[in-house]
């Protein structure tokens, strides 16, 4: 029997980078296959080739033994390939059923109208068949992320997909939803559907998949049987060297409270309350970590702390001073540095060069603009210093920031924020989409600041990151800080439960930082 999917020697280049380098991939019909690798390993690119979004520069796609050429996703869909992207391809303002039948609407009255009764019925039947609980009449913007994902899967199935590709399907799910999703995988596989899912989490690959293929730097470095492999083997395949697990970190020496948040309530743009009474007391010389599945209020919390969003109620204090009503600029002046979650939206002005970007946030300080006149010479020196110290490449202050790679953009932001000589640092996903070398560098700098007695609030969805760097670790779920635990003693299982909103009995909660004397 031939494989349902066989990718043969796929090569895909982008200007200046080889995303896929002669990758082979074979997936049996009715099996669940995990595509494992670090960010930037080329997993999504490979799947976009299979899905017809990209044309390969070399190699062939085979489906059921037949060589195929997909020029558009339409071709791939017609051949029975469906893809569920990381960002859902759903129309928020339509109902789930309308989304599922989009492009294939059943018609009545000679095509003049959508047969909505039939559409709803078909969706209901399909959803029952795979044990999904999807209300065909609910508007997509009103259902949870987990349900939206099911709508995406149903949409692919409705379009006749036999091969389902899922890009990082667990990134936005709670542990419980993840478990449900894996059950869905099993049901689909039982119906002879072939599933390929992209992940960078070893545990998930081992738990859900039959086979695991590991990509590293655009190459297939091995396909293994999920039951016969070990975490260590997979980790080595992924990283290509022993995983550096422990950052150098001496015991904390916490001082006074540097950043305090009390009973903070924040609503999002839609008016939904996202932060529901959070209390934080991060101390000088301490990294206070916040873990949680994305979208549980972390973004809104950070925006309220940094002055980008007005909270509904509660207080924010910097060094004991109430700054709740202070503007963003006043908080910068009060000694707050902020590494934003979205560097291309907020952290950098993409059209500006690095000289101008080095000024962002300091454009009113007497150092750079005494009397409102900008000292460009000094600004340029400042940018060049950041570039040199943080190894930003290319080392050219006149480069437009849009021309830099993500990692270098991030290094520049980190450099600029740390150069403020801040007292409080809010770092939101500081290493997202950043290469391994830069990650270590950014981690070291954060720990330097901790050593220098600064207060660090670190928000990240990477568990290993928050666990390694934090002295205390708060876990957010649905806008609440479920618990604050000792990151050295908490287990991954306990964290998982906390992130799902449950409090395990023996979680190592701590009210005060270890080593603290108050």
């Amino acid at each position, binding site marked *: 029997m031939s494989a349902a999917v066989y990718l043969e020697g796929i090569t895909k280049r982008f200007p200046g980078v080889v995303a896929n380098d002669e990758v082979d991939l074979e997936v049996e019909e009715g099996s669940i296959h995990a595509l494992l690798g670090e960010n930037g390993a080329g997993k999504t690119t490979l799947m976009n080739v299979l899905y017809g979004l990209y044309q390969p520069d070399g190699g062939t796609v085979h489906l059921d033994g037949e060589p195929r050429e997909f020029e558009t996703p339409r071709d791939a869909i017609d051949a029975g390939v469906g893809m569920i992207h990381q960002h859902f391809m759903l129309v928020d303002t339509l109902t789930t059923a309308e989304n599922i039948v989009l492009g294939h609407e059943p018609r009545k009255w000679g095509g003049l109208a959508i047969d909505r009764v039939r559409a709803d019925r078909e969706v209901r039947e399909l959803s029952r068949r795979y044990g999904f609980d999807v209300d065909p009449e609910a508007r997509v913007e009103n259902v949870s992320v987990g349900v939206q994902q099911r709508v995406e899967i149903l949409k692919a199935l409705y379009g006749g997909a036999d091969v389902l590709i899922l890009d990082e399907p667990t990134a936005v799910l709670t542990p419980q939803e993840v478990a449900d999703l894996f059950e869905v995988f099993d049901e689909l596989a039982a119906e002879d559907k072939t599933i390929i899912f992209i992940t960078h989490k070893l545990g998930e690959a081992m738990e859900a998949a039959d086979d695991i293929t590991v990509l590293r730097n655009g190459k297939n470095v091995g396909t293994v049987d999920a039951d016969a492999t070990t975490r260590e083997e997979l980790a080595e395949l992924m990283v290509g060297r022993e995983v550096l697990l422990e950052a150098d970190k001496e015991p904390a020496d916490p001082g006074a409270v540097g950043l305090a948040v009390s009973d903070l309530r924040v609503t999002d743009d839609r008016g939904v309350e996202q932060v529901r009474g959070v209390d934080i007391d991060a101390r000088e010389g301490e990294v206070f970590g916040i873990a949680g599945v994305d979208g549980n209020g972390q973004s809104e919390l950070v925006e309220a702390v940094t002055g980008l969003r007005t909270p509904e109620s509660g207080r924010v204090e910097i060094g004991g001073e109430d700054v709740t009503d202070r503007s963003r600029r006043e908080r910068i002046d009060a000694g707050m540095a902020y590494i934003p979650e979205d560097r291309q939206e907020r952290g950098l002005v993409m059209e500006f060069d690095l000289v101008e970007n080095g*000024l962002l946030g300091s454009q009113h300080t007497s150092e750079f603009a005494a009397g409102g006149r900008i000292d460009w010479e000094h600004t340029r020196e400042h940018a060049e210093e950041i570039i040199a110290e943080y190894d930003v490449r290319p080392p050219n202050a006149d480069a437009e920031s*849009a021309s830099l790679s993500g990692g270098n953009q991030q290094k520049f932001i980190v450099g600029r924020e740390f150069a403020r000589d801040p007292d409080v640092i809010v770092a939101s996903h500081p290493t997202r989409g950043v290469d391994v070398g830069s990650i270590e560098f950014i981690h070291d700098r954060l720990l330097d600041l901790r050593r220098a007695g600064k207060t660090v609030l670190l928000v990240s969805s990477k568990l290993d990151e928050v666990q390694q760097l934090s002295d205390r670790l708060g876990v957010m779920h649905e806008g609440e800080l479920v618990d604050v635990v000792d990151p050295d003693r908490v287990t991954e299982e306990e964290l998982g439960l906390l992130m799902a909103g449950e409090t395990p009995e023996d979680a190592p909660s701590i009210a005060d930082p270890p080593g603290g004397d108050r």
Partner: protein
Amino acid sequence: MSGDDSTIGRALGGLVDASAIERILISLAALGLSVVVGAVVVLISGWVLSPCPSAPFATLGGLGEFCYNPIEVYWVLLKGAFGSTFNLATTLQETTLLLFTGLSVAVAFRAGMFNIGTQGQLVLGALGTGLSVLWVAPVVPAGLVGGVVLVAVGLLVGAAVGGFWGAIPGALKAYADANEVITTIMLNFVATGIAFTLVSEVFKDPGSQTVQTRFVPEYAQLPALVLGIDGFSMLALVGGLALAGLVYWVLRGTSFGYDLRTSGVQPDAAEYGGVDAKKTMVSSMALSGALGGVGGAVYVLMVAGQWQSGIPSLGFDGITVSILAGNNPIGVVPAALLFGALKGGSLVIEFDLAVPQQLVGVLRGLVILFVAMPEFFRMAGIRYGYGDDEPAVATDGGTPREGGADDGGDSE
């Protein structure tokens, strides 16, 4: 004005910047294409007009007569713009006025505010100038001193009124989220209506049939200095040029300008950088309105000598000027000269060739249309072998912003 080396160095650096050159090329190409399409419009209109009142320019069997020769039209247009002292004065008069309105639009556009309301700001600013000068005139001595005082008062009041009128849509956008394109256009209608009513009901020149105020004193009108023709003052032109330099410096060299530009290109980043978005919206619109108001003041003090109904559409032409200039205050200077020349020449083509002067209005729209589609010229450039076809290569070998090789959260 700033005289330090670094500012000048940056200015030059900005001009030789690749994207700046591209911008200039696109503006020139858009202009060229507009001239070509305009020629077609002229040809067709000549055909529509046939039978021609005078000898036709060409007769094509079956198609009929073509009355206008586009090349002649453009030639007369050009000659008309610079051919005589009088025409030159007309051209420079228009150039001067467009400098102010062009700068007004440029400031707003750079701040990300589509201020289509310069026209209204200008109309009310002009009224403010006219009335304030008439009001103050009796209490100052005639002659040079009085003239200086009156001009200063007129300019200040014009700027203040225009700035206030501009700040309204700014505030509506900042605090009520009202789309400024629509509010500014509506406020143009409102401004014209208010000014007309005020003058016709309260401030009308009793000795006139038309709706206009009394004339401001002779000594309050800007002196010609050169050319010697009423309606154009070298003083105003020099002032306009200096203002262009000043606006450039404000945008480029001050904290306020940095805030304004950052808000214009990336509001989220501006907010992150501590820029008060709402305040910037209001202040940039107020500045824009003030520049438009000064344009109105110069119109009164240099051209009309009074407020009168039917002020020409200098505000709308300012949009074209600014867009053609890539919203760069320095670029506004040549763009204003160009449209000044078109205006100067348009009177002549109507007079000499009977081609309606509204042709300039058509060209105005075409220029904006073509400048709005840089992609067209880029594609054309690539097809014919100019320019490179890999526009967004990351200089460090990484993938550009929307590159597909990144599996991380940035990819999409």
